[in-house]
């Protein structure tokens, strides 16, 4: 009996009228956890009942604590007939199970009913007393922290990053059980909500156990999804990255290194003087492989078609252009398996990381995007306790990803994610990530890999290291065009780089970034089972190929050379497949200037045709020039001599029917930069190709003052102001079913996305200048002729005036950040600060910093001082943390709380927690910010309160009365936001970061006046403090510290 859960029902407000006669309600509450139920008294005739109940106590296993949600049901008492349910609140008590997060959940929760939506609010207080259980064979994993954030959370330090954790649980879907025929829709929805909540809890617990096994204490980049497989069941699966995290501000940080958890951490790679530069060990002559240039950095998996029950026989049919590529891949993979230097990866099953941003020095090289898809036929899950089939499916895909990464000379995959698309009984499983070489010092047991270490030392200090190719030029996994790095001029870089991760903070970018999307539809014949699966798997390679080509063309058209945050979604429907790829294009200074796009016609003798082609060519060139101006891409001109001997280029221009100089006579002045580089050739041999070129040119850039990206931060903008607006927008279009062609379909889909973006720009025009960050598009095909696109993003304002000086401040900032992190890695902060703080007052330190920023080679001494300066703020915040900790213990110990202590904790655990129900008419509900990003601009996250993972179903049988489908979904999404905010506020938080709407499944039946929607959202609840407030506090620090220790003494005596 290792835990006691205590619940108190305080009051309700704004309840619906349940008794028509009196216009009032006789409400009471049932509190259920596991199999135990308590009831409050009936509060007669009121819409604002004051139950003020006793503490309901549940004595439970911590296993149950993790799995079960607390279920609160508000009912209307009826003497003669059955009591009517008003609605429910499910509370996930997981955040109370680890010490650093919330200690109490207290606040107003919306009372939710799956048929009526939110019906009033209820004030609840929940506490957990946890007894320590040291049983080694325990089934629970209380204490493991979960983060949705795909980087190391802001107030933590990664001691060790252990690696990939995954788990899935399956069950029957209550909607498809026989009992569903006789129960009400409400009962069915509630059964589903409860089951998914239960499965999520179980999943989290199981993942936690795996983390404990790996000796970690946290999961970062936790991504949980559910697959509604219909008849065949319900799958809840999750992936994440196990880590050992250390709270930056924990008291331990004040003690000099005595509790340094890992010895190797002391010897951080960054301690090495940076003057090593990038000494190249590659002295072999450089070869450039020939062949299709379209597949750079992009290994495409052949979809393997597997029928369940038939074993795993691969019936893969690869598309033409891939045959060569694949052979090469397998070859190199085999070769490397022989005498590969990457012994390290064989130790771990899957060296995958769900993180997209990393501590400095963690990422050594990036190979490129690796992805794998496979088409499966769903079959009923017979035994929910043994979800082996689904496990095997994913294991297979991961294995494939792993081998792709190996082929790219990488031992790890970062920015890894998995997804599914289901239509009837066909399911496409997809996984993608970025092949990378990592610094083993951060990984648990990778420290003795001599070979890797050698590599590290060479490359770490440069800021272009991650662009350098990790693979061997002799055995290139695919044809690529290599040049010497434009930054260090020593190592090889590819001409284009695709990744699924965020732009590393220390990467040098020229100009600004922009959102790039490739959109594609393919019609497919309606078919059943195997035939259907075969048709899909035949189509997949062509789609991947085309999506890739589109991305490449659009990237070139923007004058950029790298994609970050690439996410390709393939959605399957009854009669079509949709592909949507989103990424953020940037110009990396380390990579060569991209060549232009050149158009080549098939029939060169036709005069008018020729003219048409050259007209198009001119248009394309104009667009490139315009884009370069728009995104401020003006890389410094580099003469060939500096770069050194050019890499022998394969002058294979057989396909090039017109030479660049001929076609672009008139535009040479516009087209200086890419005129001499090898151009990307687009052959126009039929109308399809013509359409493609046209569609390239139809993408309209955002209106001035707007930028957009799908990564965390917009490359080239960093002077964010504090206004943020997170939003979700959903659109569904109905296609006219008559003679649909691929072209028409493509156009419709393209228009849908473009119009959606235009609408967003219009709606948010009051925020200009602003940037849409983390733009996340999801496509689904709910019915035959319906296409649904869901977008979630955040608009952040920035200061236009400061933008001019950004380059400098950016360098400064990144340096500062780097040095802060260095110091954290060093593990002896106190030694540094104790002797250097008094001797170097702040202004000189700043000077050092500035000089350092202008000077690329930073002497070690100066670095030390800058370390001090920048870490000052961090230490201050740790003091605050310490004081808060003390303040909390005081508060818990006795009722007496002094004013000074309250002041010392600026965020006010107190402020939020002790917030009484506001009696005054003018007090409003506390603001809770939501953002898909891991940070809040202009603010510092001081505390992570736990993961928010919520699942809701809403159904209506009066669709017209609720304003049609738009009214219904609008209200539902607003309600979901409200419930997320309420839970965060109850935990004592004021924001959700890394918020994501993972699923929004909408079904309608207008003829029956019915609709149903399922939404799954998650994020991290946090407490943040405005930086402006923080400064005030940090100046008061020393005194506050004394005072608080004083009060502590006072209380204890």
């Amino acid at each position: 009996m290792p835990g006691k859960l205590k619940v108190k029902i305080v009051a309700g407000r704004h309840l619906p009228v349940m008794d028509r006669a009196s216009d009032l309600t006789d409400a009471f509450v049932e509190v259920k956890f596991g199999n135990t139920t308590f009831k409050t008294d009936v509060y007669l005739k009121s819409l604002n009942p004051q139950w003020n109940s006793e503490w309901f106590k549940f004595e439970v296993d911590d296993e149950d604590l993790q799995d079960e949600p607390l279920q609160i049901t508000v009912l209307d008492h009826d003497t003669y007939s059955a009591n009517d349910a008003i609605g429910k609140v499910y509370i996930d008590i997981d955040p109370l199970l680890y010490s650093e997060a919330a200690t109490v959940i207290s606040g107003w929760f919306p009372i939710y009913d799956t048929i009526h939506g939110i019906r009033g609010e209820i004030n609840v207080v929940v506490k957990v007393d946890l007894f320590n259980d040291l049983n080694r064979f325990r089934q629970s994993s209380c204490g493991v922290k979960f983060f949705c954030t795909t980087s190391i959370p802001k107030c933590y330090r990664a001691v060790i990053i252990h690696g990939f954790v995954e788990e899935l649980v399956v069950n029957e879907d209550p909607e498809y059980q026989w009992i569903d025929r006789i129960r009400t829709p409400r009962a069915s929805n509630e059964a589903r909500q409860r089951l998914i909540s239960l499965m999520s809890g179980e999943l989290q617990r199981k993942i936690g156990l795996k983390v404990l096994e790996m000796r970690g204490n946290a999961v970062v980049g936790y991504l949980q999804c559910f697959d509604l497989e219909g008849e065949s069941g319900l799958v809840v699966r999750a992936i994440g990255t196990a880590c050992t995290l250390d709270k930056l501000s924990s008291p331990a940080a004040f003690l000099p290194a005595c509790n340094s958890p890992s010895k190797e951490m002391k010897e951080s790679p960054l301690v090495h003087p940076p003057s090593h530069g990038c000494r190249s060990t590659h002295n072999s002559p450089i070869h450039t492989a020939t062949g299709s240039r379209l597949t750079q950095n992009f290994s495409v998996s052949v979809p393997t078609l597997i029928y369940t029950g038939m074993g795993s026989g691969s019936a893969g049919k690869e598309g033409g252009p891939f045959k060569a590529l694949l052979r090469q891949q397998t070859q190199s993979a085999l070769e490397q398996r022989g005498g590969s230097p990457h012994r390290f990866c064989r130790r771990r099953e899957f060296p995958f990381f769900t993180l997209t941003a990393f501590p400095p020095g963690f990422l050594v090289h990036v190979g490129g995007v690796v992805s794998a898809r496979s088409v499966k036929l769903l079959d009923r899950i017979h035994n929910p306790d043994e979800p082996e089939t689904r496990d095997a499916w994913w294991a297979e895909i991961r294995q494939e990803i792993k081998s792709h990464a190996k082929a790219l000379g990488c031992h790890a995959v970062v920015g890894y994610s998995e997804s599914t698309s289901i239509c009837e009984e066909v399911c496409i499983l997809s996984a993608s990530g970025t092949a990378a070489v990592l610094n083993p010092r951060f990984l648990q047991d990778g420290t003795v890999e001599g070979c890797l270490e050698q590599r590290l030392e060479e490359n770490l200090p440069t800021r272009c290291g991650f662009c350098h190719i990790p693979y061997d030029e002799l055995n290139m996994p695919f044809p690529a065009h290599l040049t010497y790095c434009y930054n260090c001029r020593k190592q090889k870089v590819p001409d284009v780089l695709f990744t699924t991760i965020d732009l590393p903070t220390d990467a040098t970018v020229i100009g600004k970034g922009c959102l790039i999307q490739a959109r594609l539809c393919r019609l497919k014949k309606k078919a059943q089972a195997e035939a259907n699966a075969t048709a899909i798997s035949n189509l997949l390679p062509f789609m991947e190929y085309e999506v890739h080509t589109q991305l490449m063309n659009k990237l070139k058209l923007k004058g950029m050379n790298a994609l970050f945050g690439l996410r390709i979604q393939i959605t399957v429907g009854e009669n079509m497949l949709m592909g949507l790829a989103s990424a953020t294009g940037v110009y990396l200074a380390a990579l060569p200037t991209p060549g232009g796009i050149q158009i080549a016609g098939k029939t060169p003798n036709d005069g008018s045709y020729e003219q048409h082609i050259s007209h198009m060519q001119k248009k394309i060139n104009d667009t490139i020039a315009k884009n370069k101006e728009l995104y401020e891409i003006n890389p410094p001109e580099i003469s060939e001599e500096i770069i050194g001997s050019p890499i022998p280029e394969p002058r294979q221009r057989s396909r090039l029917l017109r030479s660049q100089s001929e076609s672009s006579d008139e535009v040479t002045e516009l087209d200086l930069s890419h005129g001499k580089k090898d151009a990307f050739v687009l052959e126009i041999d039929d109308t399809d190709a013509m359409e493609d070129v046209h569609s390239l040119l139809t993408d309209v850039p955002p209106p001035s003052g707007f930028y957009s990206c799908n990564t965390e931060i917009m490359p080239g903008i960093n002077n964010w102001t504090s206004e943020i607006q997170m939003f979700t927008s959903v659109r569904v279009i109905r296609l006219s079913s008559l003679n649909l062609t691929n072209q028409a379909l493509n156009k419709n889909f393209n228009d849908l996305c473009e119009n959606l973006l235009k609408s967003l720009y219009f709606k948010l025009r009051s925020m200009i200048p602003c940037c849409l960050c983390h733009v996340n598009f999801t496509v689904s095909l709910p019915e035959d002729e319906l296409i649904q696109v869901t977008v979630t993003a955040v608009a952040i304002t920035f200061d236009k005036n400061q933008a001019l000086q950004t380059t400098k401040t950016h360098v400064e900032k990144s340096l500062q950040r780097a040095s802060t992190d260095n110091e954290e890695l060093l593990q002896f902060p106190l030694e540094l600060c104790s002797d250097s703080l008094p001797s170097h007052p702040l202004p000189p330190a700043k000077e050092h910093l500035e000089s350092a920023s202008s000077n690329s080679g930073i002497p070690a001494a100066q670095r030390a001082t800058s370390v001090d300066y920048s870490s000052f703020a961090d230490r201050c915040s740790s003091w605050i943390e310490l004081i808060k900790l003390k303040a909390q213990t005081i508060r818990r110990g006795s009722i007496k709380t002094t004013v000074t202590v309250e002041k010392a904790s600026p965020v006010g655990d107190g402020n939020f927690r002790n917030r009484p129900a506001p009696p005054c008419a003018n007090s409003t509900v506390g603001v809770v910010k939501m953002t898909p990003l891991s940070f809040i601009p202009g603010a510092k996250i001081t505390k992570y309160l736990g993961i928010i993972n919520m699942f809701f179903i809403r159904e209506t049988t009066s669709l017209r009365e609720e304003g049609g489908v738009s009214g219904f979904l609008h209200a539902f999404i607003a309600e979901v936001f409200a419930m997320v905010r309420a839970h965060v506020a109850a935990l004592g938080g004021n924001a959700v970061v890394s918020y994501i709407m993972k699923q929004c499944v909408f079904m309608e039946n207008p003829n029956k006046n019915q609709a149903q929607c399922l939404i799954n959202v998650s994020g991290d609840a946090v407490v943040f403090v405005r930086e402006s407030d923080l400064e005030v506090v940090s100046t008061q620090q020393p005194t506050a510290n004394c005072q608080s220790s004083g009060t502590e003494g006072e209380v204890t005596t």
Partner: protein
Amino acid sequence: MTSELDIFVGNTTLIDEDVYRLWLDGYSVTDAVALRVRSGILEQTGATAAVLQSDTMDHYRTFHMLERLLHAPPKLLHQLIFQIPPSRQALLIERYYAFDEAFVREVLGKKLSKGTKKDLDDISTKTGITLKSCRRQFDNFKRVFKVVEEMRGSLVDNIQQHFLLSDRLARDYAAIVFFANNRFETGKKKLQYLSFGDFAFCAELMIQNWTLGAVDSQMDDMDMDLDKEFLQDLKELKVLVADKDLLDLHKSLVCTALRGKLGVFSEMEANFKNLSRGLVNVAAKLTHNKDVRDLFVDLVEKFVEPCRSDHWPLSDVRFFLSQYAASVHSLDGFRHQTLWDRYMGTLRGCLLRLYHD
């Protein structure tokens, strides 16, 4: 390709003031889009008509959902569904409860009943305000009336507390409620020259001095109903015109004081008895509900119009009324000085406000 569903939901609810105004003014989505296009927004932003349509629909949907909450503004503050900054909440409420001058003049003093609601069609045609907007304004009046009807305490405070309106707007509503409760006639042709502001000014004075609340602050309905006792007592003032000596004395006192100071002295002197009779008779009649309703008609007929026909300047009216009220204190035979002051103080303020073209 048709759009089946098209929504935008922000964590902070987006409120477009211009669209809100169009919605409040009762325009349909189509009309609102047309009006927005005419405002030149497409050229400013480079948006398309489709974008505008979708944006307008979204806002209308949001307002429609908010309307339920706006009916009880404190709910808007406590609800959790829409996260709206306090300043925006205030704006939403204030604009929702704002009304058109033209509309309020039509219904001021009328019973806020179903019958009046049926006349909204005519009012709409007459004023050019959309029927939808008329309904909203009428329902607002009625809602406020119902809520504060049987409450204790200051009318303005009650309105402010339950509807979170600004001071100015709460005072206006107090006037509307007061007029509706006492059914003052304001629609007569004679009264057409008066603005809502004129009536609201009078209402405020009357609430302050002539209601139960003016003497006792703990009564139900204290600010809505006129003090019946006071109205009864007003009969006593009749002596001022019934007693010929008293009337002559009063006249001579006023004339002595104003001689040489008034441009229209001779007209005043000639009209004094008529004017005084008019003012005192209005007071004496207030015991009957019907006469209470006609208060403003009587004031205009008996005082404003005669003065206006003789072209009294406003300053002369002010001089005269001050002297007329003050001189009564020197009438030895008159015992109801306090009553006179309570009556005349308010009446003087009202008359001065009503005296214009």
